[in-house]
Structure formats: structure tokens, C-alpha cells
């Protein structure tokens, strides 16, 4: 940090009582974000009987039986598999579709460009509820109901506007001189794109991939509608159904929830720095 910013930061920092209050406030908020994980992990590790008597404290007799049970008996293992297939395929497809499109929109000037951008932005404003039923119709018409491929295509299409929008912003940051230089050196457009430009927006791509992964992994409505049968079901739907089906006891539910929450959490931790820098870049453009 240069000398400039430290002065400003020190001068604007709260002192004395406000400083202490600030600290306390931040700690309380931080604890509130941490608590779900603490509570649900500790609950998942308790047996049903122990939870009845010991709701808040740490487990006295650790047991992983809940995890075992939800994974095997309650189908969570299958749900994880389905979700993983759908989400990973969707993310890959979204990247494959949005990167070239973003590049084209960022670099080329062609007649329909403006119209396309406006359409993209408007598309991002459409509530899922509006599009749900005709989407269902369309999927049925194409014979894709209850097929994971169908959900992958729908996810990709619905996330494309935002993804293209984001990638366009990132590609704009690439200096056109580099592209021109590559052409002068004899590279084809495709080659330039793949070998030179894409690596330059690597952190943007990773940001998009991570954010999309997390949001699709947690998606509920569309997978509920488009993958109705038990064998194709995804995690969020499966867990929701478990809650309502029979009075499932909380220790099992907690185990299921923690399993479901783990991949997005890990993805976030690993790619955190990209998201932070990616969002910071985007906000200042």
C-alpha cells in the first residue's frame, strides 16, 4: 500500500468508544454468518436421542451414522451425483458459449450490437416465475422432460445473458493492440482468441465459473419442475422433499444439508480471491 492510502485509512478509522463498538458489531455479524455451520455440523454429529436433550451444546457422543444414513438410505448420494453432473456440464457449456459471444460483443462493431446488448440486459430482469411454465412446455415439446440434458440446456440458456454480459465487460479490458499484433503475426482469429485473449481474462472466467457453479448447485425451482422423477432428482429438491415428506428428524436433515453445502463452500474458499478481484474489477468499470 502506498503512503497515501495508509494516511487516509488511519485518519478515517474510528477511535475510542466508536472503535470498540465497531469491533463488537463486526464480531456479532461475523458470528451470525458462522453459526449455521457450527450448529448444523454439531447437530449432524449427534444421535437423535442426544439432540432431544442437548440442542445447543456440542455433541458428547460423536456419531457419523446420520451421514451414512442420508447418503445411502435416503438417496442423498444419488442426488449429489445428479447435481454434480448437471451443474458441471452446465458450467462448462456456459463458459463455452459465453466466452466467444462476449469476445465478439466486446471487440466487433456490427449493426445489431446495441440491440443485442439491450436484449441481454432485459433478459436478466425476467422473473423465473414468468418463464417457468412456457419453459416447461418447451422442454416437453423437445422431449427433454426428466432428462438431465434438458436441464443443462435450460440452465445454460437462462444464465447466458448474465454470463455474456460479464464476459463482455472483461474482454473490453483487453487491449486491442494485442489482438492486432497477433493478426499481424499471422494468427487466425480463433487462434488469437484461444491462445492469447482467453488467458488474459482468466480470473474473470474463473469468477464466472465459480459464481455460476454455486448458484446452479443451489438452484431449486427449475430442477423441481424439469426433473420430477426420483432417479434424476437434484440435491436441493431432494432435501426439500425430505423435509416435507415425513417428520424427518433434524439430525438427519442437518447431515444432508451439510453434505449439500460442502461443494459450494469449498468452491468458494478455493476461488475466493478470483471472485473478490473479479467483482472489484467489475464494479469499477
Amino acid at each position, binding site marked *: 500500500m*502506498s503512503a497515501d492510502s495508509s494516511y487516509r485509512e488511519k485518519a478515517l478509522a474510528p477511535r475510542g468508544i466508536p472503535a470498540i463498538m465497531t469491533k463488537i458489531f463486526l464480531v456479532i*455479524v461475523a458470528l451470525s454468518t458462522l453459526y449455521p455451520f457450527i450448529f448444523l455440523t454439531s447437530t449432524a454429529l449427534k444421535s437423535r436421542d442426544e439432540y432431544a436433550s442437548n440442542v445447543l451444546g456440542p455433541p458428547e457422543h460423536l456419531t457419523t451414522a446420520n451421514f451414512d444414513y442420508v447418503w445411502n438410505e435416503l438417496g442423498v448420494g444419488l442426488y449429489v451425483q445428479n447435481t454434480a453432473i448437471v451443474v458441471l456440464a452446465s458450467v462448462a457449456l456456459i463458459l463455452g*458459449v459465453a466466452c466467444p459471444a462476449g469476445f465478439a460483443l466486446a471487440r466487433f462493431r456490427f449493426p445489431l450490437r446495441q440491440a443485442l446488448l439491450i436484449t441481454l440486459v432485459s433478459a436478466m430482469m425476467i422473473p423465473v*416465475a414468468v418463464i417457468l411454465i412456457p419453459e416447461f412446455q*418447451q422442454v416437453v415439446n423437445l422431449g427433454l422432460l426428466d432428462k438431465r440434458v434438458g436441464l443443462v440446456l435450460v440452465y445454460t440458456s437462462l444464465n447466458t445473458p448474465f454470463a455474456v454480459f460479464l464476459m463482455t465487460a472483461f474482454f473490453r479490458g483487453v487491449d*486491442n493492440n494485442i489482438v492486432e499484433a497477433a493478426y499481424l503475426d499471422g494468427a487466425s482469429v480463433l487462434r488469437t482468441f484461444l491462445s492469447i485473449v482467453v488467458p488474459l481474462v482468466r480470473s474473470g472466467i474463473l469468477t464466472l465459473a465459480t459464481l455460476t457453479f454455486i448458484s446452479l448447485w443451489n438452484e431449486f425451482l427449475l430442477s423441481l419442475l424439469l426433473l420430477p422423477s426420483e432417479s434424476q432428482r437434484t440435491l436441493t429438491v431432494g432435501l426439500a422433499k425430505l423435509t416435507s415428506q415425513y417428520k424427518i428428524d*433434524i439430525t438427519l436433515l442437518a447431515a444432508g444439508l451439510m453434505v449439500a453445502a460442502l461443494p459450494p463452500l469449498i468452491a468458494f474458499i478455493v476461488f475466493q480471491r478470483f471472485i473478490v478481484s473479479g467483482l472489484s474489477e467489475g*464494479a*469499477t468499470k
Partner: protein
Amino acid sequence: MVKAPQQHAPRTASMHPGLGGRPVRQRETLPAGARTRSKYTRLQRHEWPYAVMFLAPAVILFVTFELIPIVQGVKLAFSSWDGFNAPVFVGLKNFGTILHDPVFYTALKNNLVFLAATPLWVVFPLIIALLLQSRPRGWRVYRFLFMLPTVLSAVFTGIYFKTLLSYDGPVNQVLRDIGLGNFARGWLVEPNAVLIILIGIIMWSTFGVGTLVFMAALSNVDVELQEAALIDGASKIQVHRYVTIPSVRPTMQFWTVNVVIVTFTSLFPLIYVITGGGPGYSTYILEFSVYESAFSAGKFGVASATGVIMFVLVFIIAIAVFFGFKHRED
């Protein structure tokens, strides 16, 4: 890293909607006198087929799975369909049905309540970002932790809070244990309490991203201006009020529009899991009526019409908010 003296590149019209034009920063790797980047080049002859090829997949997918369904949806809004027989064109009848339905107005009112909570969802992350701006010890840890709720699914958050706030749940137990048993109640089953609780839960789920966005914006505030104000004797509050906040206006505008859109498009799964629209209709938002019309009543036409109304509402409100910011010059 030594920062070169502030040199703004000549103002190119940044096309980023929602942020307005902002001076484009010179990349630190380029020499200070580098010529202006050309923003777009005219399509060269050899690039044409590639432009088409690069855009084609996105366009095809968009048309197939978004554009066509939207058009179908709008058509459906003017028809009556039960899901089995052929749809029958009925003109504006669906809209009439909706506008005469008291439940519609209840749902609309609930949506507007959440809309009214929007300032809270914008100001809270801003405050947190300001608090973290002075880089207290461990600020990176705070930033990380604050993002955690966004990683959770609506189902997770919903079940967590449902458990926490149930009558025999941890929160009430603690209240009873410390002698405040009178305060123990069914937090999620009392119509008055539940809306407020939901607003809090939604804020908890979403403030992390806002904090990140505002932190980025804050670090771009003109340092010299802030220091000048400090040197001139302004108090910290004054510096923030007259320098910092005005500087992050564009970001506030962007984030507010974003939150408003979220209010109409993304609240459904969470509310569905936590209260299912109840108790009664106290948390029943418009999306619920789309669902019920379609899947309980088998009136797909009415459902689509509700959807159309929702979209028009979001659009108008989002535009209003966007321009509302622009004209509020102090």
C-alpha cells in the same frame, strides 16, 4: 507497487449500464503516454465468419430456451389453458380475473413491503463496507465470513432459520433460559413478526455481495479529495457525508437496482421453504399466485398473465429507481 500519478485516459464512453461513464484507468503496465485504445474496430473481412460463429451458440440457445418461451408465455397470458386441451384465446379476461382477485392485492402488498425494505438492504452493506474501509485487524476474515450466507442454498437457509426460530427451537430456549421467557414466541407463525423476520433473513443472506461491491467502490474514491477535506478540518462524519458517499453514488444506484430486481425475482424459494406463504397470506408474494394458479388450479393462462404483470412491474420500478438516482442532485 508505486502508483503512477493519476492519469485518466481520455474519456471513452464506457457502455456499462448502471454505472454511467467512468474514466477508464490506464493499465499500469502501459507507459503513461500510450495512445488511446480503440474501443472497437470495424469488422475486418476475415473476421466476419468468426463473429457469426462466436455469437451463434449463445443466440441459438437464447432463442430456443428463452425467447420462444417468453413469447409463448405472453401468448398464454391471453389464453385459457388447463394443461390438457388446446388453449383458447380469451383476450383480456385473465387480467380481469386477476385484478378482481383480493388475493392478488394481498400478494402485491407483500411484494411492496419487501420493496420498501430495499433501502435497508442497500445501506447495511454500505455501512459494513465503510467500517471495513479503515482496514481493521482481520478485515479479510470479516469479508470472507460475510460472504458465507451467499454460498448457501435457499433450502439450507430456510431450514436453518425454521429450526432456529421454531417454538421449541434454540432461540426460544435461550430466551427462556435467561429469564426472558415472555419474549419466546412462534416467530414464524405470527403474521406481524414474520414479515420483519423475513426481511432480516433476506438481509443476512445477501449483504455479503453488497459489502464486496461497496468495498471495491470505496477503494476507488478519490484519496486526494478525502485528504483535502480532512486537512481542511472536516470531521470523519463530514468527510463521509460530503466526499465518500457522493463518490459511491453510481455504485449505490447499480446495487439498488440490482436489489429491487432481486426483490421481484429471487425471493420465492426462500419464502416458500420458510413459511410457504403463510401464516394465512401474510408472506404470500406474487410468485406464489403464479404457482398456485398453474399447479393447483390448473389455470395456466391466469398464471402466465400474473407473470406478465410481474415483469411489467419489475421493469417499471427498476427504471424508476435507476432514473430516480440520476435526478437527485444535492
